[in-house]
């Protein structure tokens, strides 16, 4: 309940405000002190007695993304209602995944509560088909050896060089481009100080933009640790990297990988990977990704698939979707955990559909070995 006279009950109002910020933080909105002060200053201009104004003010000061807009609105409705504050669950309990198929064959989202808001931005796209192969719960990730992680970083740096599509800080001489004053001045020394020969430079292409799509289905379980290390290294070495996981649904992992050391990042990463079900439908997930996040694919984006290509869905659809990525993106890189094994041939139906559209087919070991690997040769 919004207090009737906040000016006369500041302590109570502040206590409730602090509770509201706590609720938001528990739901994943990182409300900082700066945002709290912004809302406090906003309430000098918008009365908290005006519920709509209070909500609009909370939204524009506390939320910083469409997903957070939805969370702030839902939390506002729940918190500033007639219910006493003690009845609001600050920690939203997570339900375990279903182990038996529901009557309609579809599984309900287990982590995103229904939010009564006009914003329809997908927090996670959920295909949510029931699968008997669904893991019992959690997606634990074990750390790899520090030497392996260091090697992965070298490999990630090598990949960045191989697929660089964006200009970096360093420049190279070129016919067209910006005038290089330093070189032009030096050249002017040959012509009595007159600027006759203008030297020009262009930025070297040394930066990449990556979109990592990580298959977290049951068949990839044995390779989770290595692939998590690879994903972490790519995210650290290539600043413009967005990471999504998929099996029967697509979910973004980028926030879970931000700003933490390797070992500390494994726990939030494991938590973020939602074990909604097994039985990979890669084509369907890629189609959902294209619908929800297709705008992230640009002519300068390199798409990195981490998958064994085992697809229980429509493999023709998989081929069509990878073709779409190939058409839109700079490069398609496919990392298959089995590709490094002796005698391996990419003969799964999913892999056969995707391979014609793949520019670089690699094994995780290609990132670890310093020479002789396909990535090094590239």
């Amino acid at each position, binding site marked *: 309940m919004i207090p009737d006279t906040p000016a006369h009950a500041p302590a109570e109002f502040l206590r409730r405000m602090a509770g509201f910020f706590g609720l938001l933080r528990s739901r994943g909105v*990182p409300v*900082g002190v*700066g*945002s709290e002060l*912004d809302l406090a*200053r*906003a309430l000098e*201009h*918008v009365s908290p007695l005006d519920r*709509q*104004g209070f909500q*609009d*003010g909370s*939204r*524009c*000061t506390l*939320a*910083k*993304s*469409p997903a957070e*807009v939805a969370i702030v609105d839902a939390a506002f409705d729940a918190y500033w209602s007639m219910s006493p504050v003690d009845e609001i669950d600050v920690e939203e309990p997570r339900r375990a995944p279903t182990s038996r198929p529901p009557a309609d064959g579809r599984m309900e989202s287990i982590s995103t509560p229904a939010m009564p808001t*006009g*914003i*329809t*931005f997908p927090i996670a796209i959920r295909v949510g088909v029931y699968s008997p192969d669904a893991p019992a719960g959690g997606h634990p990730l074990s750390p790899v050896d520090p030497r392996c992680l260091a090697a992965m970083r070298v490999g990630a740096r090598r990949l960045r060089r191989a697929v660089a599509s*964006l*200009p970096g800080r360093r420049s190279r001489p070129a016919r067209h481009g910006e005038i290089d*004053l330093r070189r032009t001045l030096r050249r002017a020394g040959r012509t009595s100080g007159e600027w006759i020969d203008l030297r020009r430079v262009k*930025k070297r292409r040394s930066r990449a*933009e990556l979109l990592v799509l990580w298959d977290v289905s049951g068949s990839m379980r044995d390779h989770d640790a290595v692939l998590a290390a690879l994903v972490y290294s790519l995210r650290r070495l290539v*600043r*413009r990297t*967005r990471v999504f996981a998929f099996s029967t649904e697509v979910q973004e992992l*980028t926030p879970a990988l931000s700003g933490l050391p390797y070992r500390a990042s494994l726990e939030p990463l494991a938590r973020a990977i939602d074990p909604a079900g097994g039985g990979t439908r890669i084509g369907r997930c890629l*189609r959902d990704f*294209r*619908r929800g996040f*297709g*705008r*992230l694919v*640009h002519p300068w984006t390199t798409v990195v698939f981490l998958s064994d290509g085992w697809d229980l869905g429509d493999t023709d659809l998989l081929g069509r979707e990878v073709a*779409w990525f190939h058409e839109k993106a700079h490069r398609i890189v496919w990392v298959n955990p089995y590709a490094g094994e002796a005698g391996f041939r990419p003969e799964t139906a999913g892999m056969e559909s995707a391979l014609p559209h793949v520019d670089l087919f690699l094994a995780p070991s290609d990132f670890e070995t310093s020479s002789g690997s396909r990535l090094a040769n590239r």
Partner: protein
Amino acid sequence: MAISKVLGSVDAVLDAMAGESYVADRGLATAVFLAAKLGKPLLVEGEPGCGKTEISKVLAAATGGELIRLQCYEGLDANAALYEWNYAKQLLTIRLHERERKPGELETEIFDERFLLRRPLLKALTADGPVPPVLLIDEVDRADEEFEGLLLEVLSEYQITIPEIGTIKAKAVPFVVITSNRTRELSDALKRRCLYAYLDFPSLEKEIAILRRKVPGLEDGFALDIATFVQRVRGEEDLVKRPGIAETLDWAAALLALGERTITRDLVEQTLGFLVKDAQDLKALPSERIDALLRTT
């Protein structure tokens, strides 16, 4: 009109925007009002073509302030965003005075404000009109992350430091609108300094209201048909690029220019390029599917 009157309350902002034919909801008006009151930049994200850039144009027109636009792109740097020395003018000055002046004197003279080329950010801070300008930093997600770092000092302190001259503080705090199409995540540091608004696709009623305001001469029934059809197209899940309000307005204007008053399959096929801007999406909407969409309209 005085800026305090235009941005003096949420209702005043709504009226001012409506006066410039911008249909805003109360949430957006509150964000604009608070951004003006708190002196903070307004970060507007949303689908392309949903009116993000238009907000700054409307506010400039309503307040009478100058609109200063910085279009962001890959490789945008301080020289293009803040200031640059006018090297040609400096060189000419050196040549003109090299015989009569000592080198030290010349150096002081050529690093003067007269030799400064003001780029949009500096221009916004040094504007001395009666009304603070509206600074539009458009599509900031296209610029590099390093550029966001450059913005931090400008947006939090409203000042720019030029080593040869010193720190230049804003004469009047400009109203800053930053837009992003969310092609990449912006840094937390930048987001923290801004108030936030998200523009989604409009509802049917809002889209009809926009059509009525923006396309004069459009009959009510025809506006309803156009808006309903566009909403149906937008609802098609497999489209890569769903049409925004800008596309709806272009299409409505095109239909009006053709002298049409009803939507038919042939007409849609001939003019679909106004609405759908992706080759794959055009292929995904064959005649039969357009028929089905029209039947449901």
